[in-house]
């Protein structure tokens, strides 16, 4: 953008480095200490071991939490993509006040502080007599990630423009045929990208979940409970594994969302 002097460049790089140390530095502590023995609350730096991981493998609650997280993540992503597509198709099907209101409402659970989204659902479930369970968690997550998938699909549909669909209809295709042969193939890559991002968001969602969860806890809730109880070596092992998974998910998301040429051309 600008031509930067050498001094300016050095100063900026230094400031940037500080920020990245603050962002990533703290994460190194649990990762590194997960590979050492811990005695009396102190890391024994001369005793490398995998005992934290062994303790983790024996923690049955964790495995259940991982399973729950996966169930919730996949269900919420799947539901959000289907509902998001339907809503986007309706929104792009014309202009009306009702459509604008719908458009606005869909973003609310994502934009409002999570405590409000969570409390609304909590109170709603209580008043309708729905007990807190995995289903209520899936509902909360679906609403949270719906805004994102809906938004992405609307953007894609708008960039497609009406001519393709008009052509299909003029040639005598039924709405179902247009959907199957024109719209869905054009949406495919968008749906995959939105799906990965939705799953990542659901995987991490804590504040809404904390309010609507019953006894079937997801991984972040399990972690939260473990951390509040105090220090345990298996937390570090779990943190390391989750961070590893996140990084893999990020790499996959980047590969999918950015067209292959932009990565190669640089």
């Amino acid at each position, binding site marked *: 953008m600008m031509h930067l002097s050498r001094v300016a460049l050095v100063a900026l790089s230094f400031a*940037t480095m500080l920020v990245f140390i603050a962002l990533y530095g703290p994460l190194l502590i649990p990762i590194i200490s997960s590979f050492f023995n811990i005695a009396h609350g102190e890391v024994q730096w001369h005793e490398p071991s995998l005992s934290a991981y062994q303790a983790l493998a024996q923690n049955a609650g964790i495995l259940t939490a991982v399973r729950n997280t996966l169930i919730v993540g996949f269900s919420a992503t799947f539901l959000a993509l289907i*509902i998001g597509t339907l*809503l986007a198709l*309706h929104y792009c099907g014309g202009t009306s006040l009702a459509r604008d209101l*719908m458009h606005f409402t869909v973003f609310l659970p994502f934009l409002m502080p999570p405590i409000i989204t969570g409390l609304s659902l909590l109170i709603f479930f209580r008043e309708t007599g729905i007990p807190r369970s995995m289903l209520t968690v899936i509902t909360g997550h679906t609403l949270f990630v719906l805004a994102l998938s809906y938004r992405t699909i609307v953007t894609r549909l708008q960039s497609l423009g009406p001519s393709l669909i008009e052509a299909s209809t003029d040639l005598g295709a039924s709405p179902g045929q247009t959907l199957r042969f024109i719209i869905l193939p054009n949406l495919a890559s968008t749906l995959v990208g939105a799906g990965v991002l939705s799953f990542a968001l659901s995987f991490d969602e804590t504040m809404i979940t904390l309010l609507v969860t019953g006894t079937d806890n997801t991984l972040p809730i399990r972690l939260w409970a473990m*951390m509040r109880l105090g220090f345990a070596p298996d937390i570090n092992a779990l943190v390391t594994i989750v961070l590893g998974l996140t990084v893999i998910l990020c790499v996959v998301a980047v590969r999918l969302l950015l067209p292959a040429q932009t990565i190669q051309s640089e």
Partner: protein
Amino acid sequence: MLFIGASRKSLWPRLLAGVSYGVPLLFIVLPLASFLAYGFFHLENGNVNYTPSLGNYIRFFTDAIFIPVLWQTSLLCFAVAALTILFGYPVAFLLANLKGRRRHILLLLVLVPLLMSYIIKIYAIRSILGGNGLLNRFLLWIGLIDQPLTLFVFNLNAVLLTLTVLLIPFAILPIFLSLERIPRSLIDASTDLGASGMQTFRHIVLPLSLPGIVSAATFVFVLAIGDFLTPQMVGGQSGFTFGRIIYSQFGTAFNWPFGAALSTILGIIVIAVIMVGNRLEHRHT
């Protein structure tokens, strides 16, 4: 626009409309409405009394605890916004000036923490804070300080530090986007007319990136004020924030109607901040 030829009687458009209005109505509008209504109910012998009253709001305005805590929390979140912008601006500026692969990698490094588990990040930061924490011990060990700093003890300071680290990426991105939108021709013109780099920055780049700064501030403030996990984890005994008080109404205090009323107030503040932010942003564009 879509399905223009679907005028022959088909179920499809009606199905679409049904889902499009049904789902948001049932799962977003209705819960929100019941939440707002709950703020006007009150608790009686552990049960919710559904007679509407302003009792919760009167308690909020008359009790000596809530308004000071809300004020303190707002100041805290404002400080977090200021700090994230202060530290985030240089990163965004560098990002806007890089090209090709370097820019790609730096942008990725800003984005990755956003997808990392929030709770894990808090846990990691907590593990280095504290009076006897790693940060203090490290500073003592290298001899920079000779007494543990109280800056890192678990109280509101720790909340401030933790929130700043957590929310920096949310400040970097809008500033970066606003820097990207500045037309190159303006900078070239300024340079051609003999302005130094510093002058161009002060008179062209900085004013034109103000909308990005404002939206960064709004973003960070809104995220910080709604957070109850961070103060709960690193706030210790004294680090009370408004979000934490709300959350306690659903746990230890177990007063849902009052919690709903407090959250409504939080919601009003959030909406007000977003509106002021929008106003300022458009004034600068």
